[in-house]
C-alpha cells in the first residue's frame, strides 16, 4: 500500500510517503510558506520513491482543526491530486495526528490534545492509544481553556500549543490528573499517514469532493 499524506494546519508544513510500511517525511516550520513548499515536498517524495501519483493507493490530509487557510491549503491540494489521479482520500484529524506523534515520540498512552485556536480558545480532543494508534474519546471541540471537557482518572499527558499558550489555565483545570506535557509538539504528515493506513483499511476513504475541512469553529461571522 502506498499512502501520501500532507499536513499544513499549523506553522509546520509536512508531507509523508508510506510505502510498504516504511515512511519518508519532509517537514519544515514555515509560517505562511505552505503554498510554496507543499507541492515541492510531495513531488520530491514521489520522485525519490520512483512513483507517479496514479500509483498511490490513497492520499491523506490533516483535515483540521487548525488555521483556516492552512487547513484549506491541504484540502485543496488533496482534492486536486485525488481528482487528477483518481485516488480516494482519507481525512485525518490534526488533533489525532498530534496524539499519534505524542505516542511515537514519547510513548504517551493517553493524551489531552490542545491547539491554540486564537480568540482565547483552544481546539480540544481527548485521545487514547489503542493497538499503537490514536483513538478519539468523545468529541473534539473548540472552547476556552478553563472550560475544557472534564476527564476521569489520572496519568494523562498534555500535548500541543494550547499547553503552551494556556498552560497555566489548563494546569489549574486538570491539576494532578496531568503528569507529563509536550507543549511544543506539532501535527505531522508522518502521523497522518499512520492513521490514514488504519482508516483506509476500515473503509473510511472518500472521493475528492468529499474531502473537506473540519474547522470546529463555525461561528465565524456576526450578523450586522
Amino acid at each position, binding site marked *: 500500500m502506498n499512502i501520501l499524506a500532507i499536513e499544513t494546519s499549523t506553522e509546520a508544513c509536512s508531507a509523508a510517503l508510506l510505502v510498504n510500511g516504511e515512511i519518508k517525511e519532509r517537514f519544515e516550520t514555515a509560517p505562511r510558506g505552505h503554498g*510554496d513548499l507543499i507541492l515541492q515536498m510531495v513531488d520530491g517524495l514521489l520522485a525519490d520513491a520512483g512513483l507517479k501519483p496514479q500509483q498511490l493507493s490513497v492520499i491523506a490530509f490533516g483535515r483540521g482543526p487548525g488555521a483556516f487557510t492552512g487547513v484549506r491549503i491541504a484540502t485543496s491540494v488533496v482534492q*486536486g491530486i485525488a481528482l*487528477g489521479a483518481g485516488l480516494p482520500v482519507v481525512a485525518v484529524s490534526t488533533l489525532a495526528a498530534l496524539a499519534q506523534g505524542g505516542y511515537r515520540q514519547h510513548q504517551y498512552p493517553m493524551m489531552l490534545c490542545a491547539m491554540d485556536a486564537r480568540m482565547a480558545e483552544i481546539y480540544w480532543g481527548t485521545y487514547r492509544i489503542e493497538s499503537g494508534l490514536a483513538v478519539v474519546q468523545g468529541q473534539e471541540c473548540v472552547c476556552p481553556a478553563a472550560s475544557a471537557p472534564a476527564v476521569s482518572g489520572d496519568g494523562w499527558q498534555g500535548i500541543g500549543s494550547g499547553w503552551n499558550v494556556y498552560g497555566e489555565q489548563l494546569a489549574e483545570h486538570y491539576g494532578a490528573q496531568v503528569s507529563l506535557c509536550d507543549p511544543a509538539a506539532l501535527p505531522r504528515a508522518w502521523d497522518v499517514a499512520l492513521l490514514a493506513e488504519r482508516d483506509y483499511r476500515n473503509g473510511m476513504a472518500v472521493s475528492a469532493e468529499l474531502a473537506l475541512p473540519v474547522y470546529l469553529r463555525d461561528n465565524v461571522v456576526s450578523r450586522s
Partner: protein
Amino acid sequence: MRILGIESSCDETGIAIYDSERGLEAHTLYSQIELHLEYGGVVPELASRDHVRKTVPLIKQLLAESGLTLADLDGIAYTAGPGLIGALLVGAGIGRSLAWSLGIPAVAVHHMEGHLLAPMLEAEAPAFPFVALLASGGHTMLVQVEGIGQYQLLGETVDDAAGEAFDKTAKLLGLGYPGGPAIAKIAEQGTPGRFRFPRPMTNRPGLEFSFSGLKTFAVNTLAESAGDDQSKADIALAFEVAVAETMAIKCRRALEQTGLKRLVLAGGVSANRRLRQRLAVLAAERGAKLYYPRAEFCTDNGAMIAYAGCARLMAGQSEGLVIQARARWPLEQLSAVT
C-alpha cells in the same frame, strides 16, 4: 490546446473549458450571493469555505456535461489575484495540484486581465489596441491595451469602486445586494431630472474616478426628500445617470488622449444597461466602436480565466510548482504575450 479555467477570487466559483481551436466549449458558474445576502456583503471566510465545497463538484459536472475527461485537458488556468486571498488560494490549490497530478502545465491568471479579455470570447471580438473601461465591485480603471499583457493604466478610482458605490447606495435606499441590478430596476420608475447628482472629478483634467461623494450626495438627497418609494426611484435614477455620464466623460477623454477607435467595457458594472447605452452614444459620436462581453461574462466567470490562461500557456508561460495567490497585483506587472 484545451484549457480548464478556475475562478474563485470572490463570491463566485466559475469553471470553464476553452480550446484554442474550438473556442469556448463549456462553462458553469456557482454564485454564493444567497450565502452573503444576510450580511449585506461578501464575508471572506464564508466565501473560502464555500469554494472548497463547490470547486471539484463543478469541475466534475462540467466535464460530464461536455463529454470530456481530464485526459482531454492540456493545461489548467486559475485566478491567482487580485481578490480575497483565502478564496483565491482554494482555486489556486486545486488548480495547481490537479495540473501536477495530470502532468500538464498550470498558469496563474490575473483576474482583471481575465475581465479585459472577456470580450475576446464573443464572435465580434475587438482587435488590439483598444481602450478598456474596467468597472466592478472592487475596481474601476481605464486601461490602454496594446496586446495581451501589454497594459497601461490611464486612470483609476481614488476611493470607492463603481460597483461598491452601487452597493452602498442600494443599501442606503433599502435595496438588496448586489446593488447594481437593484438600483437599475427601481431607476426605471424614476423621474428624469428631479434630482441632479454631481459628476465627480470631471471639472478638471485627468482620468481618475471618485465615487464616494455620490454616496454622500445620495444620503443627503434622501434625507431632504420625503423618503417615499418615488423619491427613492428618483434618487436611483439620478445616481445611475451620474455614474454613466461620469464614465462617458472619462472614456471620451481616454479615446481622445490615445487616439484609439475601439472602446471595451468590462467588469460587473458593464452589465448596466444605462451605462452601455450612454457609451454606445459616445462611441457613435467619436466614430469609435464599443465592445462588451455577453452579460454572463461581465461578472466573474471561469471562461475569461480559461481564455487568458490559454493565451499565456500557448506563449509558453507557466507557473512553477507553487501555490501562490495575491490579494493585490498591479495589472502593469504582467508580462507581455508576443
